[in-house]
């Protein structure tokens, strides 16, 4: 019993540690008593918060995630969907289905962040919005041109579709709201929900960022590596990664024209890539029949698996789905050692080509878009069992949705907050390389310029007595003096420092025998 309690305490400590988000500051050597006191109080509060969070996690989170466990010689990847179907409840059973729509070509999918709605886009112009909870079709439209990609914006009310020439934004009722002509013929779309940015890569290899709140074009950059179909947003920091035909993966942010990172991942073209939700892992697949898992903190390969993957996707719990041909494979690491191994596999009917695999958030469901429609299969242990209504609520009412929309708009992050390490925000800027001090001539010139500028300023016309020429001259002189002052002050300061330096130098430079004659300062 005691041991158990201890164990529980240990677990609790672990979670508390997690919620403390790093080491507490060491106040031992701190001289400033006031600061010390303040920090101590702060730390105490943090501790309390973390403890409360840990307690909530322990007692209040309703459910735990499960996964398949094999018995004996059984292998998890041998377990078929049918056998799973026999075991699960009716509600989950509803998530196993195939939708066959042979005419309108390969389908691509997207889920809302809360997993409640799905948008499906057929290559030949079929757009459909489906409520996944009731499995009812909300709206479907035929746009009568190629649709290459579809993506939800911040909630289910809006989605963007990459069509033949331009991407368009539709609302839930299928009304076309915007035509984003600046993007051109877009091949992939991504939405950055914290920044409200719609990112697209077009056929010319141009990366566009558009703010969907104000419609402003935030960035437009040439990748310079041609057309690509592999594009994914890192959910951790909002960096967009592109896979190129030269085997490189480039990572972009909307405020710089050059890629943040360019890494050579495969010798052949990169066919797809995916990010782990925690942002530290990236999976890429190359045409040379390799899937690689990268640690983005070190930019090193963790694991190389063999196999084609036309499409990759990480689930919320970190399962990796890879689809190629008519075969879908799910890799998982349940050991926590980031060593991915085969977890499940599923093959759809022969001839169906998988185009897109996408885990449904907050459900143990994998959506597969293929050439003949879309399917949905059960992958135990893939979805996050407990949702946080601050983040996403699958059971959101329309009122909550409206609230959320306003809140998220208020909390919208500016595009410059996208960076490789977002924890750097708010910290002290690293010291820049020392800028060369301006030379004397430069400073003189600067002063001259300032004086000239001061001379040119128009003097306000004052009332009668104060507008005399002498007064005006005086005022002008004052203005010029004021302009000069900082430079002169600077000069004086410099002289002072120089003198001080000189003095100390004198003292130290004296030969030892003469040093005692140096005048001591009165103490």
């Amino acid at each position, binding site marked *: 019993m005691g041991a158990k309690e201890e164990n529980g305490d240990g677990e609790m400590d672990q979670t508390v540690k997690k919620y403390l988000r790093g080491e507490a500051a060491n106040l031992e050597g701190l001289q400033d008593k006031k600061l010390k006191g303040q920090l101590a109080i702060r730390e105490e509060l943090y501790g309390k918060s973390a403890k409360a969070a840990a307690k909530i996690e322990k007692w209040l989170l309703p459910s735990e995630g499960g996964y398949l466990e094999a018995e004996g010689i059984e292998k998890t990847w041998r377990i078929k969907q049918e056998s799973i179907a026999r075991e699960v409840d009716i509600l989950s059973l509803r998530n196993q289905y195939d939708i066959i729509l042979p005419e309108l070509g390969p389908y691509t999918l997207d889920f809302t962040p809360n997993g409640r709605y799905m948008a499906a886009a057929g290559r030949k112009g079929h757009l459909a919005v489906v409520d996944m909870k009731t499995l009812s079709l909300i709206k479907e439209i035929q746009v009568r041109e190629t649709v290459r990609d579809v993506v939800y914006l911040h909630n289910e009310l809006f989605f963007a579709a990459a069509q033949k020439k331009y991407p368009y934004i539709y609302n839930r009722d299928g009304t076309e709201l915007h035509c984003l002509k600046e993007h051109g013929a877009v091949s992939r779309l991504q939405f950055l929900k914290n920044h409200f940015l719609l990112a697209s890569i077009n056929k010319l290899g141009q990366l566009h960022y558009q703010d969907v709140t104000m419609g402003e074009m935030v960035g437009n950059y040439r990748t310079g590596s041609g057309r690509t179909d592999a594009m994914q947003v890192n959910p951790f920091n909002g960096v967009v990664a592109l896979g190129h035909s030269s085997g490189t993966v480039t990572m972009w942010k909307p405020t710089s024209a050059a890629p943040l990172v360019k890494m050579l991942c495969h010798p052949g073209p990169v066919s797809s890539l995916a990010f782990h939700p925690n942002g530290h892992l990236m999976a890429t697949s190359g045409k040379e029949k390799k899937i690689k898992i990268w640690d983005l903190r070190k930019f*090193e390969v963790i694991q190389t698996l063999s196999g084609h993957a036309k499409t990759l996707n990480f689930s919320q719990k970190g399962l990796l789905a890879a689809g190629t041909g008519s075969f879908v494979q799910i890799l998982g690491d349940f050991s926590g050692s980031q060593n991915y191994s085969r977890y499940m596999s599923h093959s759809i009917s022969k001839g169906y080509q998988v185009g897109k695999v996408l885990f449904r958030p907050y459900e143990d469901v994998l959506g597969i878009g293929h050439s003949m429609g879309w399917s949905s299969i059960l992958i135990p242990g893939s979805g996050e069992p407990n949702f946080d209504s601050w983040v996403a609520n699958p059971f959101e009412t329309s009122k909550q949705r409206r609230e959320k929309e306003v809140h998220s708009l208020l909390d919208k992050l500016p595009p410059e907050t996208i960076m490789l390490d977002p924890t750097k925000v708010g910290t002290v800027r690293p010291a820049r390389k020392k800028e060369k001090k301006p030379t004397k001539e430069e400073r003189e010139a600067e002063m001259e310029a300032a004086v000239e500028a001061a001379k040119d300023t128009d003097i306000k016309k004052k009332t009668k007595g104060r507008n005399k020429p002498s007064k005006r001259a005086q005022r002008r002189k004052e203005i010029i003096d004021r302009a000069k002052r900082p430079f002169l002050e600077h000069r004086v300061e410099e002289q002072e420092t120089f003198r001080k330096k000189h003095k100390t130098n004198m003292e130290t430079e004296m030969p030892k025998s003469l040093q005692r004659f140096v005048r001591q300062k009165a103490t």
Partner: protein
Amino acid sequence: MAEKKRKERAGGGESRTNKKFKKHSNSKGLTKKSKDKSNMRRKRTGPRLPSALRTELDRLNARISANSDDEINSDVEKDVYEYEEEVPQEESRKNRRFDPVENYEYELPEDFEDENVSSDDDDDDNDDDFDVGGNEGNLIEDLDDSDGVEEEDDGRHLRMLQGITGMSNDAFEGKKKKNNVVISEAHPESEYNPTRDVLEGDGHITVQDLLEPIQGKPGYSKLRKRVQYMDRKSTSIQAPLPKADREKLERMAVYEHSKKDITKWEHLVKRNREAPTIFFGEDVDLGFSTVGAIASEFEPRTEFEKKIASLVYDDKVIEAHKADGSKLLELNKISAEDYMKHRNHIAKMRSLLFHHEMKRKRVKKIKSKTYHRLKNKDKLKAASAEMLMDPEAAKEQARKQEFKRAEERMTLKHKNKSKWARRILERGLNAQDEGTRAAMAEQLHHHALLTRKINTVKDSSSSSSDSSSDEDDEGSDQDRASELLEKAKEKTLKVLEDDEEVPNSGVLSLPFMVRGMKKRKEEAIEEAKLALQEYEQLEGTVGAVNLKPATASGRRVFGMANNEASESNNKIKTDNKKMKMDNYYGNSDSEDDLEAKENLNITGGRKNDVEKDAGPNCVHKEAADVRQDSVFKNFDDIVRDPGPKTTYEVAIFTSDSWRKMKSENGVDANVKKSQEIKEPIVQNQDLKEGEEESDSDSEEQMVDGILSTGPKDSYELPSQSELIRHAFAGDDVEEEFEKDKQEILNDENPEPDKPVLLPGWGQWTHIQHKKGLPSWMLKEHDDAKRKREETLKKRKDAHLKHVIISEKLDKKAEKLQTKTLPYPFTSKELFEQSVRMPIGSEFNPETAIRALNRPDVVKKPGVIIKPIKFEEVHQHEKPEDHKRSGQKRKPNRSKGAVGKMKKQ
């Protein structure tokens, strides 16, 4: 006086002189001596002071004595003695004068005094004696002064003797006395030549002296007794401290006291200071809040208020009101008809007013320029009519006009000086739309109108051309040039667009005439085109080098479109070609070359145009021509534009034609080249069109010869070429990446320039030449190189062969970080650790947020913060567990949060 001072400064000798002088006074009578002795006897026990201090004191005393009046002589004397006594016994020769204890009984001061002042007759003699003595004393002192050292020796000797024998000084004094020689004063004594006694303190008039004359008078003995008593009992009274010192002491005392008093607040204040949050007025009842409630509380206080109240609340008034109120109302009665009439009238007026108001509102809102123009016109018309009719109005009008003109001259308001105008000029007038241009022109016109009067006055030659020239003068040279160009361009365009209608009848309708005209027209058009080109080029040079003019005309746009299309096609191929192209540009062509080619190209194109009749082919060629042109321009731009972009842009804009051109031609005659260039382009274009069509039909099918990049979108088997490309894709990927990385590294940390000498510099002789570069230059170069290598090593991707991490600074993101450490923090780590926790509601449980985000001071609106009240606080008590009356504190932080939530 001066003499005296000198003596005093002589130090130890001084006391002796005093003494000596007293000896002389002895000869006169013993009054003083006896008194002195008695004084001395009383006050001999002083501490030994350092000699410096002593002299200082002496001097002070002496001065006082010299300055003081006769009345305070005694005091002064006392003072003198007081300081003298501080001289240790053995050092002062006075010791000799008073005897050891046995003498004490013997010498009673009263007796001596009695004897001394026995008769008035004596006085004169005494005086004489005194005088002589004084004179002598003076001389003696001089002598003394001269041999002060000797005397000091004597003093030491005496002391020695005293020390050895243990006898008092007097025993050895005799010898000294003999030495004193009486020397009479040089001058007779008078009030102008006072004796030394008078000058010195010793000779001063004492109380006794003053008492002498009143001897025998009633009350004398009493007085004398009192004086004696005082003499006997007198102790030195401390002089009161200076006021400043006194006050300082007082303050000190008060400070001590108040310090003690205030320290009791320390804990309280400390607690408040340390508390993260202070709560004010948690349980203060705000009481009434309505106006009625406050009004009901009102009590008349001032005289006036009371009077009013007495009137209002007067019983009689109230009663009367109650009784007669109705009657009073009856008096007010008016007939219903009257009332109705009145009301109707008012309603009518009101509605009229309302309508008028609405109308004015509508009219005021009108923004239409036409309306205002018309309105102004009307106004002007009316004014002019009035002017004609009424001389007064005319005068007024003229005055107004004059004023306006003067104002214009003064302010130059309409001379493109306004912010708006300057901005527009800055952007270039050509870039503006017609309306803006018109507005600008209008303004200038306005200005011209307003300032014209002067011109007419001055040279009486006002004309539109004048004004226009004025206008021209106003803009800067550049603007004028661009404007001129613009005008010229417009005109040529007009010529181009002008379709002269061929008359159906007459001479001109004859076929040969028509042909001739056509020919001429064509020529004109050609010329116009040429001119246009030139204009554009000129414009390009006038403004910054921009390609925008190319897009201004319709044809150009087409060219650009082509360009883009080709761009997409050729992208894949450029991968390998990139380097080649770079080389090509690096080695051979300079800007001028390119431009020359361009020109030639154009002429060639024109020839073609002239030769061939209009047809689809021609259109193609023209398009191609223009496109070529634009490509050239692009290259131009690229060549001019330094920086990392270069490679990308080259990659994008390179096309098939270029490669072919290079392979086929090399460096040939330019005209020929241009001819040859066209062909592939036309082909290319055809291909593109074909592709576009195919694109519309089947999504991104392959067009033969051209590969589509990346993985295919469609789900058909990849074509043979794609497979091949994929198969060979991995060949030089790594190498290329390596190159890329090197490039980027060079870009971000550029290699230092090779040290070069100015040709001829420092090479006067062959010796210097042999030496080569100066060492400091080489050193600098080496340093720069080393530095670069170090920075390269420090890069994050230094050890990662397959990764390039950009180290470029993002200026926009920089504002998200603090430039300096916030104030109380001294270490970066501490600060960063202190901000590591998010405090938003999304990241913390509900129970903790409020505590995390509570402000420093919590106070309800309307609560008056009372001054702090004293209460006992234990020093080590936690601030949280404390309550304060009036300014209450939450008992517990977390609990407080809950409690607060409940309240809300």
